[in-house]
């Protein structure tokens, strides 16, 4: 990627949580770039740091106990970590916006959904009330909310999960952000509604021409939506590639294991592959490669020393000793 194609680049980001029990390295030295108009997927299991990466970009890490201890987050020529609180306010919801997993808890239950969408518009685009309302209705139509003029005056609890998520998307896109961060946007939804929301996000992305960071645990959603993928484990990137290389030729034993652990809908499955062991506790990480206690291909060096992220073929990186020299 040349420099002017890059929308956001994260360099050496470390986000640690300082707790009574010790330091939790939730995000540990990760670097990546999101191309303009591209969808970057971050996939991993609970506690791998995917959501913390997203919150770090928006500087929404609860402090204390969390803190970004190192790194740069470069967006439109600025390092987001150097900005003042006020400058950050004008970026959040405006140039970078976020969609959360649970639309019920991220919408305010005591205001109508219209009011909440209008708030964003009035704040960031200085629209007066009528103009904001007209624009909100336009956004509701865009995201496919039927009877937008009526629905705009309803409260979140009066809407179904799918409609609430559409409201969230309308709100997130109302200022035409350059970057949209979607954290498990469809996890709480039924499959038929999930398919609608994913299609909607894809269509709107083409229209608004924004970049997306899509965080999910669902490899199906990744395959369906993304251009590039990061596979995370214990706060680190284990594998990084474009979506086709990753699914056709997964390199890291963890990625392979994950792919083989999902049952196939269109085939009879004799027996499912198991990654042995448990998702580790971040307070108590193994030495060497963080995946070695669960890995089938473990060698002596894996236990002693942690591998670097290594470029195996162009654009395909993996953190595994198997592929290093």
């Amino acid at each position: 990627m040349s420099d002017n194609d890059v929308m956001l680049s994260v360099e050496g980001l470390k986000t640690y949580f300082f707790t009574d029990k010790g330091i939790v390295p939730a995000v540990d030295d990760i670097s990546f770039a999101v191309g303009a108009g591209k969808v970057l997927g971050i996939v991993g299991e609970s506690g791998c740091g995917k959501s913390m990466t997203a919150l770090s970009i928006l500087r929404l890490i609860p402090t204390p106990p969390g803190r970004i201890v190192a790194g740069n987050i470069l967006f439109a020529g600025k390092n987001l970590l150097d900005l003042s609180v006020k400058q950050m306010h004008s970026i959040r919801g405006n140039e970078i916006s976020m969609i959360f997993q649970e639309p019920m808890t991220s919408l305010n239950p005591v205001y109508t959904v219209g009011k909440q969408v209008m708030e964003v518009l009035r704040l960031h685009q200085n629209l007066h009330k009528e103009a904001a309302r007209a624009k909100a209705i336009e956004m509701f139509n865009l995201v496919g909310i039927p009877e937008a003029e009526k629905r705009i005056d309803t409260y979140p609890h009066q809407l179904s999960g799918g409609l609430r998520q559409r409201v969230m998307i309308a709100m997130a896109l109302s200022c035409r952000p350059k970057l949209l961060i979607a954290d498990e946007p469809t996890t709480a939804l039924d499959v038929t509604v999930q398919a609608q929301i994913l299609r909607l996000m894809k269509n709107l992305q083409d229209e608004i021409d924004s970049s997306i960071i899509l965080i999910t645990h669902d490899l199906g959603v990744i395959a369906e939506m993304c251009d590039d993928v990061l596979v995370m484990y214990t706060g680190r990137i284990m594998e990084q590639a474009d979506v086709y290389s990753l699914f056709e030729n997964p390199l890291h034993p963890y990625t392979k294991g994950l792919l083989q652990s999902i049952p196939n809908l269109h085939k009879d499955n004799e027996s499912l592959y198991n990654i042995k062991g448990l998702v580790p506790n971040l307070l108590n990480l193994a030495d060497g490669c963080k995946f070695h206690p669960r890995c089938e291909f473990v060698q002596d060096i894996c236990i002693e020393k942690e591998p670097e992220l290594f470029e195996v073929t162009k654009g395909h990186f993996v953190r595994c000793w198997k592929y290093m020299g």
Partner: protein
Amino acid sequence: MECENLKKYFVATGKGMKSKKDVVRAVDDISLEIYKNETLALVGESGCGKSTLGRLIIKLLDPTEGEVYYKESNIATLNKEGINKFRKQVQIIFQDPYASLNPRMKVVDLIREPLRTHNIAKKKEQIEKVADLMNLVGIRTEYMTRYPHQFSGGQRQRIGIARALALNPELLICDEPVSALDVSIQSQILNLLKKLQEKFNLTYLFISHDLAVVRYISDRVCVMFLGKIVEVGSCKDLFEHPLHPYTKFLMSAVPLPDPKFRDRDRVILEGDIPSPINPPPGCRFHTRCPYARGICQQEEPQLVELGDRKYACHFPLERVI
């Protein structure tokens, strides 16, 4: 196990100003058999009544109408002794391994509780049995004196399974047992359930919204929509040749873990699941069905048998053989 014309209506009473009573037909006239030693899956989206049906079958809820038979005896008319026996033979595993274990009890007591309730064996033997069960589900016996919060989600689900197996049941209701778990842990639990079924000749009623998981684990599948059965059939047959349009669209909505298929021809259903308080007249699926015609809006399709398949649709998809 068999149920006949089972109905469960919940009455939702409006509070305060609104005193209108709404009836939610969570399970509406369902007849279904579960055969010995099989895994029958109940699939559907939220609010389709799959969990309610599971609870009716093990008598955690009493039906508004209809009967449930277990080995030919009607569970509604069982006497106290009969119910006790029934409860030993039928157990349930819940979705949320965090909510279904009492946080103030140690693992050993959690797994032993059913043995104590049913007064089986002496304390020492009970504890031996707990150790056996823990080995069986893959929890180290040293952890007997730990509390639930000291375990991860997957381990808790194993504890839930051990507890359900304590009384050597014949039928196990698994209500979304893997939906709260990470992928790598989900496959471990699925394989454990399969292994246990073989070992103890268990019968499973597996309730899930995840079609890929259902395809992996079940022998027969029952697809539900808004309190009704839309289709029943053997697993392979049903997934390869769905007869009801809803089954087909449910399948095509699942994102496939292979980017090569992302541009596949697929129909995405429009609209939301209708409210079970006022289900649409006629076929309940007609508001979302692209194939719906006049009759679908007026007449509710009956469940039709076709070989070992059943479906409820006026215009079933053509059967490709």
